[in-house]
């Protein structure tokens, strides 16, 4: 069904919009349409035995397209009596106005009755009508629809309520919502104007802060969105997937975070005992060592903070604090400090919750190699133990162990 070249473009847009509605319900609602020209959907119905309505429709479509404010025209083929459905179809097709026209024979003449529906706001103009003698082709092409066109211009001239979104966020925030990404200016305010009410999904990345996001309904009038700084996250994990640890991460740059935490070995799950202790009278599913390990490090990723999947590299300096008596905490003389070099990834499973897994090597540059080897037990603890001699005179030696797995979740604070 081709009306004009312009109409073909509109049909294509409508088809794409319909496909988008099927694939992503609500997507069309987030589309902001420029308001220099508008598209119209025409609901044309005939009653009362009008013998040949086609010239009326064609002349009306031509008349509408001749209006400078009209960019395109789409025919509505659904039931003309269902105005709501027609209005939704218009909104889905990007048509701001729906023209509902009923035409019927009236004696020897023709009676037309119409109204305009604002598909975005849901408002409907008062019905208007005229009754004229049955026109010839010349009249149809020239003056038959004059009253309707005057009414269209009057409708377009009516003031519409503004649809504004005011975003308040720290200057420099990268706001990603409708349209292109925008950077908040020094005022910390950004005003976005929309033609239609919409439900807006947005994200915001701030240098040195944890990425945030959400969705909100932008209604007619002014809607305010305040974005608070969010730069910290709380990590809860398990070293070796056994020993709970806690961590605070501070995003100091989009690609770099500082982290500080505490790994503890006073309590750990020994789930492997479910198997190895089979048959034992009292298998122990927990393990305890008098060791604490505070750490400080960095985590770097080439990916954006808002990426669902973020591989990263990490490096931590950690201390080993041994609880060797009831009254004192000692630096473990076997390996007092260590360096963790790890690779991992985190995975956004909810807006502010990310699952992470990491593996790496622990290097102890200042270790007692023989005591370190002996501490691993005669089975080596199930992992590779490396030990080396002094790096320089007076240096006791170095040692390492790999791989060490850990996993957990990170929650934006």
């Amino acid at each position, binding site marked *: 069904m081709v009306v004009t070249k312009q109409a073909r473009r509109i049909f294509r847009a409508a088809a794409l919009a319909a496909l988008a509605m099927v694939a992503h319900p609500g997507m069309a609602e987030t589309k902001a349409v420029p308001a220099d020209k508008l598209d119209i959907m025409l609901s044309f119905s005939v009653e009362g035995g009008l013998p040949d309505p086609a010239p009326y429709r064609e002349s009306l479509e031509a008349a509408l397209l001749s209006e400078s404010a009209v960019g395109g025209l789409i025919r509505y083929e659904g039931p003309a009596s269902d105005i709501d459905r027609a209005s939704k179809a218009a909104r889905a097709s990007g048509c701001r106005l729906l023209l509902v026209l009923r035409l019927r024979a009236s004696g020897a003449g023709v009676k037309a009755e119409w109204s305009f529906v604002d598909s975005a706001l849901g408002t409907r103009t008062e019905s208007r009508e005229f009754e004229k003698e049955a026109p010839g082709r010349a009249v149809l092409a020239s003056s038959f629809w004059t009253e309707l066109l005057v009414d269209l211009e009057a409708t377009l001239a009516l003031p519409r309520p503004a649809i504004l979104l005011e975003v308040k966020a720290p200057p420099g925030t990268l706001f990603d919502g409708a349209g292109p990404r925008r950077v908040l200016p020094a005022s910390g305010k950004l005003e976005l104007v929309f033609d239609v009410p919409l439900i807006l*999904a947005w994200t915001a990345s701030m240098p040195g802060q944890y990425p945030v996001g*959400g*969705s909100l309904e932008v209604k007619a009038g002014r809607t305010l969105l305040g974005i608070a700084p969010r730069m910290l996250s709380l990590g809860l994990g*398990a*070293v*070796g*997937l*056994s*020993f709970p640890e806690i961590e605070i991460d501070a995003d100091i740059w989009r690609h770099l975070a500082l982290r500080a935490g505490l790994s503890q*070995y006073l309590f*750990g*799950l*020994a*789930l*492997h005992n*479910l198997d190895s202790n089979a048959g034992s009278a009292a298998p122990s599913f927990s*393990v305890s*060592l*008098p*060791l604490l*390990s505070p750490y400080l490090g960095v985590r770097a990723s080439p990916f954006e903070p808002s990426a*669902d999947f973020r591989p990263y590299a990490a490096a931590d300096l950690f201390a*080993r604090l*041994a*609880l*060797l*008596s009831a009254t004192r905490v*000692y630096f*473990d*003389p*076997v*390996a007092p400090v260590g360096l963790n070099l790890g690779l991992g990834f985190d*995975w*956004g*499973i*909810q*807006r502010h919750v990310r*699952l992470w*897994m990491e593996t790496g090597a622990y290097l102890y540059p200042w270790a*007692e190699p*023989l*005591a*370190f*080897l*002996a*501490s*691993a*037990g*005669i*089975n*080596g*603890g*199930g*992992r590779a*133990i490396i030990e080396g001699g002094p790096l320089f005179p007076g240096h006791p030696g170095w*040692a390492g*162990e790999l791989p*060490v*797995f850990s*996993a957990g979740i990170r929650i934006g604070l």
Partner: protein
Amino acid sequence: MKKPRHPGFRHILALTASLALSSCYLPTFDSSISAGLLFEKELGSPDVTVGPVAASWWSDEETVFLPERVQGARTGVVAWQGSGSSNLAYLTSDANALPSMVSMSYTATLPSGSLRPFIAMASYAAGTSTPLLALQSYGLTEWTSSSATTSVLDFGTSWTATGAGSTQVAAAGDIEVDIIFTNGSQWGALVDTLANVASLGSITAPPISLASPGLPLGGSFFALSASGPFVYGEPNGGRVAVWDGPASSPRILDLGQPLVGMLSDGHLVTQGSLELSVWDIQAKRVLSVPAGNIRFIQELSTASGEFVVLTRCLQTATKSAPNIWAQSWEIPLADFLKL
């Protein structure tokens, strides 16, 4: 708006759960070894280090080195607790040969966890080539030499030795042997020099009568002399019975750690998994240090004075049998009490 979960999320969760269930990660940390290393910084370097020696066993349990009773001993017994039994091997080493480990045929089946009282009785050299061992655990019926088959002292069948120990109160080169017996209703003790005890052959009844300590059987037993005081420590516990003399009723001290020795000046030595303590006979603590796997073994009398012998065994993994390092410290008694 809740973010839709990626289909891979379930796989990640499943992977994490699988790793958690199969994980057996333990940090490379042994509090006993760490405490021992801390104690070593006070003691200084070991006087003797023998190793690496290929061990003839696979056991993650603690291993203890009992050097022969001479200064700078590089030979002795290595004892370790297996599953339900204690085991011995003889470590030979001298300056001109690689150290080696010879399994001893004598193995005593002891209750699990009874290694501590078992080792409190050290081996004996005394200028002979056959160190002697007293297995101070409940059920002891004979005193055997390290050659494993020679019965040195037969306790008969009426009395059962329930605990033993030794003290350095005899002349240099000899030790005093302390053994406590019960026949079910009565208690008694044998306290004499090793030279005399070795010549007894057998006994039918202990020469010293004692009142019942009222503690579980199978502990450690020490005496300062045949006239007392006598001390008996419960196995794997901190309670100690003290008889001030043969006719005295025992009083019970709670020292919190197993009794492992009695010094020639009457001080008691206790040692737990991390802490080594010295007490006077009235249970006043005079020393307490985290010693870890550095174990009090015995007191040694030499021409240059009294020494406390401490030892440590380290085991490390290899592709075959574990390697053993045996180390010992000989600390003058006066210095030891000032640690």
